[in-house]
């Protein structure tokens, strides 16, 4: 592979945890209707982050919140363009979406295409009252008119770079966000 010498850690485990804690407070402030609040994480990074976020919400409020996992593969707009077929993972939304306030969470916001697919997928499950978007990293370079409601960190990137959110749930030794550069 190409040169990966220029990798840079842009967030540590502590940063990620603080961001999720801040998200929890901000979400509770924005959505006072606790009974109708639910979190949906986008496979796979967003699913892990969503689970952590729900734990924080539950700790603060001492009650449970609905949590779902969404796989957007079946809604992608580039399936017929990819040579390597993506793996279809599980979607698990076992609660009613109608009239709920949904916080959709993902690790990195980039072109906006994943979020577009996720919105279409969510709407196939029902008619939420509101959908808000939370992302750990917004790296810019949008191709669709999509903006996040809760942002961990904004960074300037170029298309040749990759932002990777590494999480212990996926077997990484520590949580961190790295910026990978390729020649």
């Amino acid at each position: 592979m190409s040169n990966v010498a220029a990798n840079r850690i842009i967030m540590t485990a502590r940063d990620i945890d603080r961001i999720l804690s801040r998200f929890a407070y901000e979400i509770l402030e924005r959505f006072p209707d606790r009974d109708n609040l639910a979190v949906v994480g986008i496979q796979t990074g967003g699913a892990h982050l969503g689970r952590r976020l729900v734990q924080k919400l539950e700790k603060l409020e001492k009650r449970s919140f609905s949590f779902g996992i969404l796989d957007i593969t079946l809604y992608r707009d580039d399936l017929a363009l990819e040579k390597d077929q993506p793996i279809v993972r599980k979607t698990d939304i076992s609660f009613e979406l109608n009239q709920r306030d949904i916080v959709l969470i993902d690790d990195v916001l980039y072109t906006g295409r994943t979020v577009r697919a996720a919105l279409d997928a969510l709407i196939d499950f029902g008619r939420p009252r509101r959908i808000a978007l939370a992302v750990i990293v917004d790296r810019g370079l949008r191709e669709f008119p999509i903006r996040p409601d809760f942002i961990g960190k904004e960074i300037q990137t170029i298309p040749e770079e990759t932002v990777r959110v590494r999480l212990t749930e996926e077997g990484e030794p520590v949580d961190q966000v790295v910026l990978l550069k390729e020649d």
Partner: protein
Amino acid sequence: MQLQSKDLLGLEGVTKKEISLILDTAESFREVSERSIKKVPTLRGRTIINFFHEPSTRTRISFEIAAKRLSADGINFSTSGSSFSKGETLVDTVKNLEAMQADVIVMRHGIPGAPHLIARNLDAAVINAGDGAHEHPTQALLDMFTIRRHLGKLDGLTVVIVGDIAFSRVVRSNIYGLTTMGARVIVVGPPTLIPVEISRMGIEVLYNIDEAIPQADIIMILRIQLERQGKVFLPSLREYARLYSLTPERMKIAKKDVLVMHPGPINRGVEIDPRIADGDHSVILEQVSNGVAVRMALLFLLAGRKEFNKSE
């Protein structure tokens, strides 16, 4: 990871990795059928033609539902009332289907190898939905999927398959698939319905069902093909039922948590007692539900990718 061939013509030669990919993908597609809106946009604009040259209820409808739930355009075509009666050849017919931009052709045909013949002549993906007494790969895949959902694995399990081993395409696909996945297969039936050299497929043969049942983690009952019984394979259906039917008495010697399967259609009271077919061990209708998920997975894996063979 993707399937190596543009077609699914049989499970002979399909690798463990590929079978696992299909079963894992089917696991994700099961959820779509449980939603209130049972549809995803994945195969929008793809055309899937069901070309059935023999009667079918389950398989044809299952493929049709699978295509619709993926938003593909599914078209059913049966040979009665078509230009077949005017003498058009099979290859010419399917070339015409392909000229109308069909992406997948699902074919059932009475002659073994018919899907293979058309697959060689087309760029479109071909799925074998049963060719004569040869293979019926999607049935075997849904059988394996059902077993895996209940028992968590296939490796190391003992599957006893009872009935018409000679004429069943279901059994051949299951033998290829199950042995590839590491299961042990025992076939049971009257000697007239068991081909002499079938043990060369890496399986065991028994003629007495009562010797096989206690070993089984899964008992798979095959349909006695009544339409073939004008010939001399069985003295009478009554005798067959007495010697081989899965009855409550025989179930007493089975393992406690044995699964009972049947690919359908069932001849009640011939190869299986209705009390067993509808009983606690039976997963027969679940096999049918799972068939849709498995066929959705296959259509996705074969039609969802970048056009396969075409030069760019």
